[in-house]
Each structure stands twice: as C-alpha cells, then as structure tokens.
C-alpha cells in the first residue's frame, strides 16, 4: 500500500500570532515555523503502518514556496521515504491544494492519503474532504483510530456526540485528529539520513492545475480584547460576585 501524507508549514503552535497594525496581513516576521501538528500526527500514522508492514512506501508532499522543503525534510526524518514540493504561492487555498494533491494521487497511484484535520494557521478544516470529493474517494475525518482488514479501512472518528466508527473502501482519505497517536521525535541519525532522501519539485503547471484563488482577504484585525478582572479571596466572595455583581447564577 502506497501512502501519501500532506504536510503544511505553519507558525509554531506556541506562538500567539497577531494581525499587523495596518490590517493588511498577519505578522509572521521572526516567527518560528513548524510542521502543522496535525500533519505530524498524519506522518506518524503512516510510519506506523509501514512498520507494521501494511504500507510499502510513504510520500510526503507540501504545497508552498521553497521554505516548505524544511517541513518535508522533517517528514522524511520521521520516516517518510521521499518528498514532493509543489512550488506554489504560500497562501494557495484549500480547493487548489486539493486539486494539486488529486493530481499527485493519480500520478502515483496512491491507496491511502493521510492529512491533518486542520491547519492551525487558517483553521480551514477542508483540504482532506475536498481531495476526497475531487478524487471520488471515501473519507474519514477526525480519525482517532485506524485499522486495516480485508482490504478496507475501519476508522474511529471523534464526532460532537462521542465516537463513530465507519468502514472505508480504498483508496481513501483520512484526516488525523489529535488522539490518533503521539508523534515520535526525529533522531539525529534519521535527520542526517533525511537529507539524502529524494525530494522532487513540481509546479502547478506540471500537474495541470490552476491555483488562482476565488477568496480574497480584505483585511485582518485583532479580536475584541478581554480585560483581566479581579482576584477574589474566597469561595464565598466568588459566589457573592457571581450572584450579585455578574448576576449569572
């Protein structure tokens, strides 16, 4: 089984990103960049499937400018076999990204695609579902467990009410939720080895995809700020404030 994992370069999860004062864009100057946490979980799942003998090859793909090669190398250090950078503007939108991924899925005859459930910068939560629709594949979003038997995938999903388990025909798209696994750290020897693994660069033209966006960001702004309130001294005082000042209980 051939697996494609899609990894996105995003601002590190610990950074509180802000809007620029002129509202033109978010301020990413000097911000530490990382692999999207959900993508790291996607890579880990693929690597575990290879270790179990279920998967034969793992391809890691990222869409963006040259800087995304750093995140592809991270995926390679974690255990992916080879990488593909699709050289497109860094703010390419989910629909275009899913078209690019679809072209790669077809070119490489992929059996399973694992993506993150959500990128933590755009908070879109779209790419996996769009790819599945375009490629006519089955999908399981928000996966917390993935089992292969009899040529099908049985996936447990985290849904609003609890957990749901569905069975997917292959090829399929699975989007990884936080509790699918705990990603390993890349070891130094593996980081060194990753530098020698193949990394191809393709363009949207090579894949026959137009990446022109249909959404424009008119402006960005900070959310309404919350002021810190007061510290209370006791439970008694807390209850008094909630009853008589805030009037919420």
């Amino acid at each position: 089984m051939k697996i494609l994992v899609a990894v996105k370069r995003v601002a590190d999860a610990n950074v509180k990103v802000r809007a620029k004062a002129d509202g033109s864009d978010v301020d990413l100057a000097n911000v530490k960049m990382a692999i999207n946490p959900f993508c790291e979980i996607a890579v880990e799942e693929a690597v575990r499937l290879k270790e179990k003998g279920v998967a034969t090859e793992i391809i890691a793909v990222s869409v963006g400018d040259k800087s995304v090669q750093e995140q592809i190398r991270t995926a390679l250090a974690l255990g992916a076999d080879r990488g593909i950078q699709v050289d497109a503007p860094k703010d390419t939108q989910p629909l275009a990204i899913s078209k690019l991924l679809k072209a790669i899925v077809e070119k490489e005859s992929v059996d399973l695609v694992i993506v993150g459930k959500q990128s933590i910068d755009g908070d879109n939560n779209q790419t996996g579902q769009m790819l599945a629709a375009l490629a006519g594949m089955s999908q399981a979003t928000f996966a917390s467990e993935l089992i292969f038997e009899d040529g099908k995938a049985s996936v447990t999903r985290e849904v609003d009410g609890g957990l749901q388990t569905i069975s997917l025909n292959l090829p399929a798209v699975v989007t990884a939720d936080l509790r699918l696994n705990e990603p390993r750290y890349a070891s130094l020897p593996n980081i060194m080895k990753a530098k020698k693994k193949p990394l191809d660069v393709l363009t949207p033209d090579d894949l026959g995809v137009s990446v022109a966006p249909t959404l424009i960001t008119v402006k960005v702004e900070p959310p309404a700020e919350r002021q810190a309130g007061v510290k209370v001294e006791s439970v008694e005082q807390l209850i008094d404030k909630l009853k008589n000042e805030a009037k919420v209980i």
Partner: protein
Amino acid sequence: MSILVVAEHDNSTLKGATLNTVAAAKAIGGDITVLVAGANCADVAEAAAKVDGVSKVLAADNAAYEHQLAENISLLVAEIGKEFSHILAGATSNGKNIMPRVAALLDVAQISEIISVESADTFKRPIYAGNVIATIQSSDAIKVITVRGTAYDPVAAEGGSASVESVASVQDAGLSSFIKEELAVSDRPELTSAKVIIAGGRGMQNSESFKMLESVADKLGAAVGASRAAVDAGFVSNDMQVGQTGKIVAPDLYIAVGISGAIQHLAGMKDSKVIVAINKDEDAPIFQISDYGLVADLFEAMPELEQQL
C-alpha cells in the same frame, strides 16, 4: 438571494445548531430553504417547517442518508445546492465533514466558521486560533459556508409554517459504511448550548475528581467541559474537549478549574460572557482573561463551592 441550510439532526430531533445557522442565513437575507437529509426523519422535517424564517423544507428520506455519510450527503447537497446562491451548515463535526466536499463538487471555495456577515459575499472568520479575525470576500457563484453557532443567537424554533417537499433523488456513493457509534449520554445540557459550563483540566489529576465538577454542575444546571490535557490523559471523553480543535462555546458563565489557559483552550471559550478561573498558580495565563480569579487548591475550593451553592 436564495439560501440552502443543511439541517443538523439525528433523524428524530432537529438540533439547535440549525437554528443558529438559520440566523446567519437571515443575516445574508433572502429565501431560506432547509434540507433535511436522513432516514425516517419526517419528524425533523416537520420541526424544520416550524422554524422562524424558513420558507421551504426539502426532505430527503432514504436509508443512504441515515448516518450522514459524507460521500452520500455531499452528492445530494451539491445536486440540490447548485440552484442556490448560498449553502450553509453549522460548524459542527457533521457540517465540517460534509461542506468542504460539497464545495469541491461544485468547484467553489468553502468558507469555514463565519462569525459575521458583512454582505452577501463578504464574511468574517477567526484564524490562528481566534487570535486574528479575517474579513474574506468570495467571487464564487455559490458560497458554501459553515457557521460558528456561538456567533449567532438561535432563531425561534416555532412560528414558521413552511411547506415540506420530498426529494426523490437518492445518492448512494457506496464508498463507505457505518459500523457503530458510542455516543455520550448525559442528563446535563449540551456543551455548545449550555448557559453555564464548568470545565476541568490537567489539574483535576484523575477522572474520579471530575465528580466534584459534576456535583457543582448539577447545582448550576451546567454542562461539564474539559481541556485537551484532561481528555488526552483519559480523565473524560473526547466530546467534552473545549478549544481550537474541540468545541467552541460561549456560555453566560464559564468556570475553568485546574486549566492553565493555553491559546488553544482560550480559542474555544474566550467569548464566554463571564469567565471564572480557579487555579493554584497565581501566574496561570487563564487569569489574564478571567473576570473573577480564585487562587486556590481546587481540591479544597470545589467541595466548598458545592456546599455553598
């Protein structure tokens, strides 16, 4: 403008999220049609017909739609939706599962979790875990949108008298099948619509101590939530997680107990009207956004709170 709202339901009852979504549809303005796709869901279609502001209900009642499998429902929504200017669903796990697929089938973008309608083609939505609000303009012929429920007060569930029309088309992609569901059962209110929420974090130490929160919750008619750390540690189930990747809530009162206040947790609750934090670390970031902070050991404060309420 003609707007299609995809109903959230469990085949027997219409879920509250639908009412918030209809409110967003009203903000766009135009004729509102609600699609109820399910199996043996006539009661839901009837309930949807009574919702304030709805002019028509389309009922697609077929076994293929029983479990809301994304492959089947998205084909149906895309087929029906091509006649509309906007297609809306709640940003629930179901809406998020289906709507991007619908958008891709229609070859248009999807706009996730809008919190405001600026005009028929321009919307606001949070990005970067709510640290930035983006205003987005779409040039697509059909706008496919999910709506953040907490941003819209629900419309009245009663008062409308829409016609109900049944949909003959059956879309069964045959790509996936339902195996089972383990849904949490609770007598407490649902997290996303509760007026009061009390949530516990890693500081709770184990699932046993969540009972303290439950007793307080019962006195306040509250729902119980949790941080990711509490869920990951197995203290409580995943459906209780509040945050960037869990549920987005905005109750009148949110009480955070033993929760530090990471960006990703705040993303899910910082629009609550009144926030209380109980934490033994006086420098915990949660205090920076709390209206009332109590620096205390939760194992002493919680029993006291329960007793005094």
